[in-house]
C-alpha cells in the first residue's frame, strides 16, 4: 500500500464522509419522527390511519432500501414527482427506518405492564397524565436498545446511496478503483472512514444500553 496515495485521497473521502454522515443523520431524524408518529397511531388504534400505517410498516420492512431508493429516485419522476438525490436518500432512509423504529416504539409501549396503567388510574391520574408521566418514560427506556440497533443499521444502510449517484464513500471508492486501480488504498480508506462513522456510535450505544438496562431492572 502506498501511503502517499492514501494521503492524497483523504480530502475526497472527507467530503464524501461528511455528505454520508449528513444525509444519514437527517434520515435517522426522519425515521424517529415517522416511527414515533406511527407507533402512536398504532397504539391508540386511530381508525383508517392505523390501517395505512400498518400497510406502510409491512411494505417498507419487507423490501430492501436499494429497491425503495430506485423506485423513489427513478420511478417517481415518471409520474411527476422529481426529487434530488440527496433528498431521496434522506427520505428513503427515513421511510425505511421509520418502519423499523415504529415496531421498536410500539413494542416499547406494549411492554409497559398493565399494573402500571391500573395503579396510575387508581392514583387518580387522567388518561393524558398517565400517558405522559407513566407510560411514555417507561416505554422510551424500553425502546432504547432497539433504537440503538436501528441507528447503527441505518448508518450502515447509507452505503447504498451510491446507486442513486450520491457522491458518498462507496461512490468515491468505486470511482477511484475504476480510474486509477489503486484498489488497496481506496478500500483501506473506505474501511477507515466507516469505522470512524460507526465505531463511536456502536460504543456510545452499548454504554447507553447498559445504563438503560440497569434502570429497567
Amino acid at each position, binding site marked *: 500500500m502506498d501511503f502517499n496515495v492514501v494521503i492524497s485521497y483523504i480530502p475526497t473521502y472527507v467530503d464524501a464522509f461528511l455528505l454520508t454522515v449528513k444525509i444519514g443523520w437527517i434520515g435517522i431524524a426522519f425515521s424517529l419522527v415517522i416511527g414515533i408518529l406511527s407507533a402512536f397511531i398504532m397504539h391508540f388504534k386511530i381508525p383508517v390511519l392505523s390501517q395505512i400505517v400498518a400497510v406502510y410498516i409491512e411494505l417498507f420492512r419487507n423490501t430492501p432500501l436499494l429497491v425503495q431508493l430506485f423506485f423513489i429516485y427513478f420511478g417517481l419522476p415518471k409520474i411527476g414527482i422529481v426529487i434530488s438525490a440527496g433528498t431521496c436518500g434522506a427520505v428513503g432512509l427515513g421511510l425505511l427506518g421509520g418502519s423499523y423504529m415504529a415496531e421498536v416504539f410500539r413494542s416499547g409501549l406494549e411492554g409497559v405492564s398493565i399494573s402500571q396503567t391500573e395503579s396510575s388510574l387508581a392514583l387518580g391520574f387522567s388518561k393524558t397524565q398517565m400517558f405522559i408521566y407513566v407510560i411514555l418514560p417507561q416505554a422510551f427506556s424500553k425502546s432504547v436498545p432497539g433504537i440503538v440497533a436501528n441507528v447503527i443499521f441505518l448508518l450502515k444502510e447509507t*452505503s447504498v446511496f451510491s446507486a442513486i449517484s450520491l457522491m458518498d464513500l462507496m461512490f468515491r471508492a468505486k470511482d477511484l478503483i475504476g480510474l486509477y486501480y489503486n484498489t488497496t488504498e481506496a478500500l483501506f480508506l473506505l474501511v477507515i472512514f466507516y469505522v470512524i462513522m460507526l465505531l463511536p456510535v456502536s460504543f456510545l450505544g452499548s454504554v447507553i444500553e447498559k445504563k438503560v438496562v440497569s434502570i429497567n431492572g
Partner: protein
Amino acid sequence: MGFEVLLKGSNMLRLLEGLSTALNISLISVAISLVLGIILGILMAMHNRVVLFFSKIYLEIVRIMPQMVLLFIVYFGSTKVIGINLSAETASIIVFSFWGAAEMSDLVRGALKSIPTIQYESSAALSLSSFMTYRYIIMPQVVRMLIPLSINLITRMIKTTSLVMMIGIVEVLKVGQQIIEANRTASPNAAFWVFLVIFLLYFAACWPISLLSRFLEKKWKV
C-alpha cells in the same frame, strides 16, 4: 403509460429470473450461515476466553461494517491483494455467509444463555445425564426460540442480496434497468412501473416469510 413494457415479450419472466438469481444467492448464504452460526454460537456459549475474544472482534466487525463495504473488499480486494479472481456470485456468498454466521451465532448464544441455570441444576438433581439434559430439556426450548429468529434472518438475507447488483450480478434490479433502457424511446415512463413491480416482487418474497416467523414466535412464546 409504460406499464405495457412489462407485458412485452418475456420481460416479466426475465424479472422473475432476476429475482430467482438473488434468491438463490441468499438461500445458499442462509444455509452456510445457519451451520457456521450454530457451531460458533455453541462455542461462544462455552466461555472460552480465547474464543470469546476473537468472536467479539468478529461480531463487532460485522456490526459496524456495511455489507456493501465487505462486498467491495472481497470482490475487488481479493484480486488485488491475494491474486484470486473470485466470481461476483462467490464473493457475495462469502460476504453474506460471513455476515449471516455472525448474526446467527449471536442468536444462538443469546438463546443458550437465556436458559436459566436452575434448569441444568434441576435436571442434574433428577439424575439426567448431560446428553439427556440437552436432548430433552435444553434443546427443545432453544430450538423453539431459534426457529422464528432464523426464519427472520432469511428475509433479512433476501433483502441484503439486492446489493449484489452493485458488483455486477444481473439480478432483478439490473434486469429492470435493462428493460427500461431497451424501451427508452417507446415507453419513457416504464421506470415507474418496472421499479414498482420489483418493489412488490421483493415484498411478495419476504412478507410471507416474515408472517411465518411472527406466527411461530407468538405460538411458541414461553
